[in-house]
C-alpha cells in the first residue's frame, strides 16, 4: 500500500504499475472466459454477440460418435501413460536422490530431455521407429511415447520432494525395527505422496494435451481429443469446439484444484513432521 505522504509521481507510478499488472492478468484469463459462453450459443459460427442460447453443441459433442470416440481414446491413453510415467519416474527419482554415482548429472539431463526436445522430432522419430514394427497405428506406441514425454515432470517433482525429505526418519524407522519395505510404505511414501501425485498430474496433462506425436503416430482409430480439436480448428471452427474447450477447461480447473490442495497438504505434513 502507498504511504499517505507519497508524492503525486509516486502515486501515478504506483497506480499505472498496478493497472499494467491487472491488464496482463486479464490477458492471461480472457481467452478462457471468451470461449465458454460461445459453447452455449445456438449460432453455427463462433461469433459474438450471442443471439440465442442452446445446448445443441453439447448434444453434438456428447452425441457425436467422433467426439466421444476421441474423448474415450484420450481416457485410454492418458491414464495408461500416467501410470507408467509415474512408476518409472518415481523409482528413478528415488535412485537419483539416494546416492551419488558417476555420470549422474548427465543421466539426469538425459532423463529430463523429453521436455525440451521439439515434439515434432519426437513424433517423426517415433514414427520411423514404430512403423517398421507394425505399431504405427496402435495405442501401444502412443502410450509409450506419451509416457516418455511425461516422465521428466515426475522425475522433477518427486526429486524436489525427496530433497526436502529428512533421511533421519528412515534411520529412526529402521532403529525401531521396521524393515526397508515397511519403512518405504509407512514412512517414505506418505511423505513423498504429494510430489508423486503432482508429478502424475503433470504427466496426465502432458498426455491429455498432446497433439503432435498423435498426429504422426495415431491412426483414425486412436484419434485423441486434442487431435480431433486440431483437425476441427484447421478445417472449420464450429461451436462444437467451444463445447469441447469448455469441457477441457473444467477439467483443467479440477486438475489445478487437486494440485493446490496437495500443495497445502504437503506444507502441513512438512511442518508437522519438522
Amino acid at each position, binding site marked *: 500500500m502507498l504511504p499517505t505522504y507519497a508524492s503525486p509521481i509516486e502515486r501515478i507510478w504506483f497506480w499505472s504499475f498496478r493497472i499494467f499488472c491487472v491488464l496482463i492478468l486479464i490477458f492471461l484469463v480472457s481467452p478462457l472466459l471468451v470461449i465458454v459462453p460461445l459453447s452455449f450459443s445456438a449460432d453455427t459460427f463462433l461469433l*459474438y454477440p450471442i443471439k440465442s442460447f442452446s445446448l445443441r453443441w453439447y448434444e453434438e459433442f456428447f452425441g457425436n460418435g467422433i467426439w466421444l470416440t476421441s474423448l474415450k481414446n484420450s481416457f485410454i491413453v492418458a491414464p495408461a501413460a500416467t501410470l507408467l510415467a509415474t512408476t*518409472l519416474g518415481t523409482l528413478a527419482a528415488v535412485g537419483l536422490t539416494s546416492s551419488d554415482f558417476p555420470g549422474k548429472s548427465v543421466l*539426469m539431463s538425459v532423463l529430463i530431455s*523429453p521436455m525440451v526436445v521439439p515434439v515434432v522430432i519426437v513424433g*517423426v522419430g517415433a514414427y520411423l521407429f514404430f512403423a517398421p514394427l507394425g505399431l504405427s497405428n496402435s495405442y501401444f506406441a502412443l502410450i509409450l511415447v506419451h509416457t516418455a514425454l511425461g516422465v521428466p515432470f515426475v522425475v522433477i517433482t518427486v526429486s524436489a520432494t525427496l530433497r526436502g525429505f529428512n533421511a533421519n526418519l528412515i534411520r529412526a524407522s529402521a532403529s525401531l525395527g521396521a524393515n526397508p519395505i515397511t519403512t518405504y510404505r509407512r514412512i517414505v511414501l506418505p511423505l513423498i505422496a504429494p510430489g508423486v501425485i503432482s508429478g502424475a498430474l503433470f504427466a496426465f496433462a502432458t498426455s491429455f494435451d498432446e497433439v503432435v506425436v498423435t498426429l504422426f503416430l495415431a491412426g483414425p482409430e486412436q484419434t485423441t481429443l486434442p487431435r480431433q480439436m*486440431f483437425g476441427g480448428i484447421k478445417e472449420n471452427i464450429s461451436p462444437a469446439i467451444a463445447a469441447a474447450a469448455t469441457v477441457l477447461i473444467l477439467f483443467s480447473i479440477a486438475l489445478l484444484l487437486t494440485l493446490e490442495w496437495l500443495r497445502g497438504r504437503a506444507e502441513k505434513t512438512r511442518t508437522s513432521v519438522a
Partner: protein
Amino acid sequence: MLEVMPTMSQTLTVNAPLTAADGELLTVKLAREHRNKQLKAVALVAPLAIFLLLTFLVPIFMLLGRSVDNPEVVTHLPATSQLIASWDRRALPSEEVFQAMARDLTAAKEAKTVPEVAKRLNMDISGFRSLIQKTARKMPLELAAGETMRDRFIQMDERWGDPDHWHVIAKNAKSWTPYYLYSSLDLRETKAGTPELAPEEERAFISIFGRTLWISFWVTVFCLLLGYPLAYWLANLPARKSNLLMILVLLPFWTSVLVRVASWIVLLQREGLINSALMNLGIIGEPLQLAFNRVGVYIAMVHILLPFVILPAYSVMKSIPPTYMRAAISLGDHPFAAFWKIYFPQTVAGVAAGALLVFIMCIGYYITPALLGSPEEQMVSYYVAFYTNVTINWGMAAALGSLLLIATMTLYGLYSKLVGANKLSLG
C-alpha cells in the same frame, strides 16, 4: 612438508586399524556399503533409462541417421554403383557401366523400384525422373550387331551423353550423402565435393531458420517484459491476495494449448471480439488483420509461454527478503535506484533461466504457428512435419530435424550449465 608427512602418518598408524563388530576392516566395510548403495541407486534408475533409450533416444538417433541415409541408387542400381566408382569422372563412363545400367534398370523395372531411383536422382538434376522412367520403360534392350549400349542410350536420349548426369549417379552411388544436410543450410555440393552457397532464388531454409530464431527471440522478450513486472507485483502482495491471483496465472497454464489457440482465433479473427469492440468504439473503421499473421502468432505464443517466465521469476522473488529494498531506501536511495541496484541483480539468474527455457521451447513450436499463422510464420518444425507428411521426403525432414535438434540441445546444454538440470522445478 615432506619432512612432516611421515611423522603425521606415523601418529595415525600408531593405533590399530579400526574394525567393525565382526572384525572386518571398517574402511573396507564402508566402501562396500557405499558401492551397494550406488548399485541400488543405479538399479532404480535403470528401468526408466532403458525405457527412454528404447522409446525416445533410439527413435531420435534413427531420425538423425536418416538425414545422411542415401539408399536408393546403391540398392536399386547395384551393378552400376559398383562399376561407376572407378570412373575417372571426366569423359563418359565406359561401355561396361552402360551395360550395367541396362541390367540394373531391367531388374528395377521388374521389381517396380524405378520411381524411387528416379525421385532421388531428380533431386540433383530436375528432369532426371523422366529420363530414368523413359529409359526403364524401353528395357530390356536388344542391341543390333556392332552397336554399343552407350550409343543406344545416347540415341534414346542425348542426356545420357552428358557427363553431368552420370556425375549425379556416381555421387549417389554411396550409401550416405551430405545432400540433405547441405540443402537444409541452402548449400549444394560442387563437383569437387565441397559445399557452396546455392543460387539466391533456390535458397529457402536459412531464412526459415532465421525466422524461427527471430520469432522465438521476440516471444521471449515479450514474455520477459510482461512476466517480470507481474511476478514482482505478485511476489510483493500479501500471501492471501497473491495466492488468489496466482490462480489466474496457473489456470491458463493448465488449460489445453488447443483451447487457447481456438480462443485466440475467436478473439482475433476479422469479425472477432477485439475488432468489433474497436469498431464499435470508433477507434478503427476497418477490421484489423490480427489472426493468421505474425501478430496472432506473437499474441498466442506469448500467452502460452508467459507462465514459464512468471513462475520461476515469482519463486526467485519470493526468496528475496523485502528488508533489502527497505534498507537501501532508508539509506537514501531512490526507490528506482534501489530496485535496480539491489533487487534486480538478485533476480537475474532465475529469470534468465526461465527466459532461456521459453526460447528453447519456442524454437520447436509447431501447433500455434500452424493454426494461427500464414505460411510466412511457419517455423522449422512445420517443415519437418511438411516433408514427413506431404512430400514424404524423409531425408529433408530428418536433416531439418537434426539441425533443429542440435540447436535445441546446444541451448539445453547451456541451460543445464546455468541452472543444473537437477535444480529444475515446476511452479
